[in-house]
């Protein structure tokens, strides 16, 4: 039962010369036994994915290579295995599932064909037997209509279905070890919960050892037996899931766990009577156009936003939560007039702005500003940070010297070094870039700030800092905020009220605490139930959480 499947001893992975550090992974040791789930947790750049790849012999040679230590798989050192032996192991004895199922699957091969490939290369079965096995596999991972999915191509499936097919493929030959590299990061929470359950079920059924790479402590709480925490390529802590999550010893682990936002909603602040932003009956449809000359058939229509009603009061933070494709980003872009709407009213301080032309809109721009999701795409790589921040006021007709002075002030307000002014965006980390983005949006002294998933591209520890900064700024500048997020934990910490969106419609609105305690709509209940690790952080940690909400 408790046979050791994998034992890694003092593993070193060397990076090419000129990298940030010499070793991606330093002196790493871990072991995995049958039927166990070992979570390797760490932030981006901690070396967790390279560890997983090293086990599969999939390091990007010749730049990155194992320079010391052993990876023993059933007593055989994988680092010294020949290429042919490695190929035998991969897929049949150790298999892997990846983060992004769309890129891990071959887009021009049907799912059935891709599963079939594994059987063709590793075992000799007749064609009909192989098809039968493949259908059986798809049924095992709870895919509806396995026969139909056999003939489907990856783009025809949803993200969750693709990941299920990947798991079916990975488990095709009943491997002894399954390596899962952030398998649910690209998925929505409700799908994530289903996939995690599936992995757990498959594991109990066939007693597989699972090496699970993740950055999300919620997922760890749900799935892990034992945990290894990595920082800068070094294991800083390891132990059972209880030890690590509830009594972490290393300061880094403590900081990471402390940074995970709690699901306990903040106390709602008193609500001002003044409405600053009102949205009524907003509709937005994509597609439906015809090609050149008006020929060809109509494109498929997608109703991205359906009859949305919102009002944002002075000084409050309204969260819009929903899964991908729910239309929340489209809503934000419609409100800030980056996209034209089909119908509806948008009014700022009682003034209708929907339908204004771009020139007419210009004087309203300074009232409403936006912070974007991806700090790497939202800053022009060719413009200096100072100019990025100052260009808003300059565009609005503020004197250049005055704008530069304001930019310098804002750089210090968002917590950056004054020298940042003359640098280019690529010289900064993700968190710092997001601070620059926030400074840019504040340069026009807006009354309303729309934050579109401002922390979803960041590591948890950075995420906590940015959320704190947004909180401070909101209080300092008396901002009203429309906060768009898919993460209910983040929403709980930031928002006074929530609007839950699905398929372009707002299904429920209400004060955050009330909505969390007593969700009315079934979809809200599903969302709440799917949050990973919810038992873990609401119960034991509630005391420290309370102190944090007070200060916010």
């Amino acid at each position, binding site marked *: 039962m408790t046979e050791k499947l994998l034992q890694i001893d003092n593993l070193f992975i060397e990076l090419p010369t000129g990298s940030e550090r010499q070793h991606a992974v330093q002196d790493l040791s871990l072991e995995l036994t049958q039927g166990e789930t070992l979570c390797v947790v760490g932030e981006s750049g901690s070396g967790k994915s390279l560890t997983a790849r090293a086990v599969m012999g999939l390091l990007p040679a010749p730049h990155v290579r194992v320079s010391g230590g052993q990876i023993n798989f059933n007593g055989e050192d994988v680092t010294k295995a020949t290429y042919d032996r490695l190929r035998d192991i991969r897929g049949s004895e150790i298999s892997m599932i990846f983060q992004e199922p769309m890129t891990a699957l071959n887009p021009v091969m049907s799912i059935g064909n891709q599963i079939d490939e594994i059987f063709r290369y590793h075992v000799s079965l007749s064609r009909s037997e192989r098809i039968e096995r493949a259908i059986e596999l798809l049924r095992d991972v709870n895919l509806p209509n396995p026969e139909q999915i056999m003939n489907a191509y990856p783009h025809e499936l949803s993200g969750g279905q693709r990941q299920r097919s990947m798991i079916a493929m990975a488990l095709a030959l009943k491997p002894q070890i399954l390596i899962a590299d952030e398998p649910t990061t690209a998925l929505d929470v409700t799908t994530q919960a289903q996939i995690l359950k599936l992995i757990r079920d498959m594991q109990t059924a066939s007693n597989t050892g699972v090496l699970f790479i993740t950055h999300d402590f919620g997922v760890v709480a749900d799935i892990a037996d034992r945990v290894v925490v990595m920082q800068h390529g070094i294991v800083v802590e390891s132990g059972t899931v209880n030890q690590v999550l509830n009594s972490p010893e290393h300061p880094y682990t403590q900081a990471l766990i402390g940074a995970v936002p709690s699901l306990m909603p903040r106390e709602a602040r008193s609500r001002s009577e003044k409405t600053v932003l009102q949205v009524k009956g907003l509709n937005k449809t994509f597609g439906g156009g015809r090609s050149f000359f008006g020929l060809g058939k109509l494109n498929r229509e997608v109703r991205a936003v359906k009859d949305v009603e919102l009002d944002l009061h002075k000084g409050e933070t309204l969260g819009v939560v929903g899964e991908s494709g729910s239309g929340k980003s489209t809503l934000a872009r419609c409100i800030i007039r980056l996209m034209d709407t089909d119908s509806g009213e948008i009014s700022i301080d009682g003034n209708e702005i929907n339908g204004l032309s771009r020139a007419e809109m210009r004087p309203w721009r300074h009232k409403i500003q936006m912070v*974007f999701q991806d700090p790497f795409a939202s800053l022009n790589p*060719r413009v200096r940070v100072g100019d990025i921040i100052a260009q808003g006021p300059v565009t609005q007709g503020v004197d250049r010297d005055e704008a530069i002075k304001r930019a310098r002030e804002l750089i210090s307000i968002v917590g950056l070094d004054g020298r940042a002014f003359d640098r280019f965006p690529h010289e900064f980390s993700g968190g710092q870039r997001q601070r620059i983005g926030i400074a840019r949006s504040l340069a*026009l002294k807006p009354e309303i700030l729309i934050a579109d998933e401002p922390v979803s591209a960041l590591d948890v520890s950075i995420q906590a800092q940015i959320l704190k900064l947004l909180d401070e700024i909101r209080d300092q500048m008396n901002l009203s905020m429309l906060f768009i997020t898919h993460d209910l934990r983040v929403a709980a910490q930031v928002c006074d009220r929530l609007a839950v969106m699905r398929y372009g419609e707002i299904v429920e609105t209400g004060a955050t605490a009330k909505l969390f305690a007593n969700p009315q709509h079934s979809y809200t209940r599903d969302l709440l139930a799917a949050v990973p690790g919810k038992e873990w952080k609401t119960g034991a940690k509630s005391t420290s959480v309370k102190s944090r909400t007070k200060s916010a």
Partner: protein
Amino acid sequence: MSTFWQRYKRNRSAVFGLIVIVLVILMAATADLLYAFDPFRLAGKPLSGPGLNGFLLGSDSLGRDVAAGIVHGAKTSLLIGLIATLVAVFIGIVFGAFSGYYGGRLDDILMRITEIFQTIPSFIFAILLVAIMKPSIVSIVIAIAVVSWPGVARLVRGEFLALKNREFVQACHTLGMNDLRIMLREILPNCMSPIIVIGSLMVATAILIESGLAFLGLGDPNIMSWGFQIGAGRTMLRSAWWVCTFPGVAILITVLAINLVGEGLNDALNPRLRERN
């Protein structure tokens, strides 16, 4: 800038190409010092071989100095190549930028126009244009520019299409910036690298087209050109090989060098495309 040079330096043949180009430019710049006379002048005994009668690379059937022709011809080739490319890149950027940025109906119209130009074989089109306008340095530049801008337009359109939906451009919209400023200050600087690369390669093509036109007798009759020299020596290829050969080698080396430089620029400006080893 230093990292740009470091990346460029890694491509040895690109460095070689750059050296050759610099030599050709030096040669063109000092043409009036090296051969301080009209290259059309009758300089001595016709059809002298290389090294004979004081001709470094021989003379042609009218006694013109081949070496002087090459040196002065370098001026013509480089000048026409450069100016024609600049004009073509300018037209291409205007078409591509408006087309990609605004999309929709305007994009349809501009791209159909571009396609009309692309469907006509470019060299024949250039011959036609020069024949209509009468051969002169201006008409040659126009002809070359007219046949080479569609490639740039398509490239720039693609870049603008990809960049206009990036978040940093959307951020500029939310700040109330006007379209022209967004196109010029925000998007265009981000697609300069591919434009520089395609531009450098277009210089080589332009030199080839110019030589081809001159070879067919459609060059500016008052200006010495490599293509004209080859055309003049073509009938005597068996008896006086040097008249054609040296200008031909000059074209070969220059075009090759420009292509190498273009390749090197591509590696240096788009480092992510490289990763080959």
